[in-house]
């Protein structure tokens, strides 16, 4: 089983002009459908959807409240290591970028975990670059053991692994997997990833599915919007999520919608996703897949993050540092550079106040470590 044949089939018959063919009628029909199809999703993200944003928003807001309530789950990323063997031309951690490289010791991981836990957060996302000789599966296993003391939920956003490796981490206490395909355009992917293990498009594409099979409870996919024409990658993001939901109904599937931001590398976006377009995509995803988790990061600006809360968002990061060891004094190296520049640097307390002011409840804990293999021990 793989999403690859599906994507190849679509990619072959999908000229960019296809999106321009949809009309407002197509968008309205898609909105009224009980179970929207892939074609409906295309209509919803097409330019014809832009004038109908308010109607889409009304529907998406109702769906979100119905399935997720007036709640926003909070998490924060913890960067464990920024050593990387990849050459992703758009990334601040690209191995050719001359930045300070470091990797946390287990004591430092513990200190970082304690500092984050002190803010009240219970859901943690751990990240590394792709340098398995330094920060591989063994290291992640050890870090998870340390972090489980502080957090009922630990997810990973790291290099692509085999199913067996994911299963090892599930046994170690990892319950979620975030894996960005970056772009679903295979030819562009090859250009953007000229060297390194990440160059294998298919191995990365199938990684979320391997995570589902390995017992991950939450699997989060996404594309870095702007690398390609964003509507194409948005379409494949939605189809990828739908594919996983159909085949792994026991797994909670989520998407992230990162837009490209300035970073230490030289590559700049091929297309720019406007605020209106990002909102359109979020609404379209909610209408297409009402139960889909939608994650919004601190790449987005504070005011924008506030306004989109009712429109479909289910998860937000808060109190973010994208530098290794950025959460505690003991683990911080001076002048560490983050993977990307964040736009919303507000603390967890500040974010909670903002979420409450919008009429939403910030949810810190939505998981109990009794779940999965760990609880059986």
């Amino acid at each position, binding site marked *: 089983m793989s999403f690859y044949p599906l994507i190849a089939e679509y990619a072959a018959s999908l000229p960019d002009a296809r999106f321009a063919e949809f009309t407002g009628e197509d968008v309205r029909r898609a909105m009224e459908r009980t179970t929207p199809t892939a074609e409906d999703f295309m209509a919803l993200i097409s330019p014809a959807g832009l004038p109908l944003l308010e109607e889409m928003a009304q529907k998406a807001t109702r769906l979100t409240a119905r399935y997720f309530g007036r709640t926003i789950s909070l998490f924060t990323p913890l960067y464990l290591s920024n050593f990387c063997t990849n050459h992703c031309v758009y990334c601040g951690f690209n191995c050719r970028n001359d930045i300070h490289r470091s990797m946390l010791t287990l004591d430092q991981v513990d200190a970082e975990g304690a500092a984050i836990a002190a803010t009240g957060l219970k859901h943690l996302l751990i990240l590394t670059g792709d340098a398995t000789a330094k920060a591989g599966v063994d290291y992640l296993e050890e870090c998870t053991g340390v972090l489980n003391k502080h957090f009922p939920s630990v997810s990973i956003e790291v290099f692509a692994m085999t199913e067996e490796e994911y299963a090892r981490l599930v046994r170690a206490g990892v319950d979620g997997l975030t894996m960005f395909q970056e772009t679903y355009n295979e030819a562009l992917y090859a250009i953007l990833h000229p060297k390194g293990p990440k160059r294998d498009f298919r191995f990365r594409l199938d990684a979320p599915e391997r995570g589902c099979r390995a017992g991950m409870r939450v699997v989060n996919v996404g594309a870095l919007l702007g690398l390609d024409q964003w509507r194409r990658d948005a379409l494949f993001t939605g189809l990828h999520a739908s594919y996983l939901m159909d085949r792994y109904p026991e797994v909670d599937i989520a998407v992230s919608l990162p837009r490209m931001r300035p970073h230490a590398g030289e590559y700049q976006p091929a297309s720019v996703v406007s605020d209106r377009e990002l909102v359109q995509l979020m609404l379209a995803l909610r209408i297409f897949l009402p139960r889909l988790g939608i994650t919004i990061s601190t790449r987005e600006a504070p005011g924008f993050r506030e306004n989109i809360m009712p429109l479909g968002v289910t998860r937000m990061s808060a109190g973010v540092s994208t530098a290794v060891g950025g959460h505690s004094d003991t683990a911080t190296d001076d002048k560490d550079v983050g993977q990307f520049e964040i736009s919303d640097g507000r603390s967890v307390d500040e974010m909670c106040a903002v979420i409450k002011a919008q009429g939403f*409840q910030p949810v*810190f804990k939505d998981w109990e470590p*009794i779940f999965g293999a760990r609880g059986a021990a």
Partner: protein
Amino acid sequence: MSEDILEIGGRGIASRLFTGTGKYGDDSLIPGVCEASGSEVITVALRRVDLNAGTENVMDHIPGHMQLLPNTSGARTADEAVRIARLARAMGCGDWIKIEVISDSRYLLPDGYETAKATEILAKEGFVVLPYINADLYVARSLADAGAAAVMPLGAPIGTNRGLKTREMIRILIEEIDLPIVVDAGIGRPSEACEAMEMGADAVLVNTAIATASDPIRMAGAFGRAVRAGRAAYLAGPGATRRHADASSPLTGFLGAV
């Protein structure tokens, strides 16, 4: 009406509206909802409970007189549901447990087979087990045999607010199962809760429709009154309804009076 007490697990319950703790924009609404609805039983997902929370904890908002009904939200198998129930008890949440075993994140439909397995294990361990199921007679019978304290059939899938889509199946459970029938999930309006009670359901559980209302406390009051009205109508014995009007020229009129 004060003598109309629902008994579950040895506890007498005067209010036949059960409520929940999920999806609120602000958990501090919960005490007001309990008061306005008159509810005495409230369900809470154990995965959300955090007794070590430095700041806010949903448990802080649940009034002390409420019967806590922890639920196994997140469980995908009987084994996971059993472990959550035991953890809930160990955490001091009591012996009541609402079993939810769901391994379909798209429709959130419960797995009757796994639910029955968990029910059997937990009932033997002395839990007061309220399983959430599809409105299915065979599953309900196996739950009764397994020692369930009540049966909670869905009116429609969780969170859909679609009402009593399983009306006819619930009617069969009411007629056939000798346990309290608590209609859980799908009820979107007070009129639908009222209808379930008129049909003879012993109670209803309403969460999403209250928690996501513009004014949850007011909606809780509306549900409380609707449930009382429906129960009163059921007890009063509504006149039999007929599918056809009485014919003005009966076909058997020629037979004359008996």
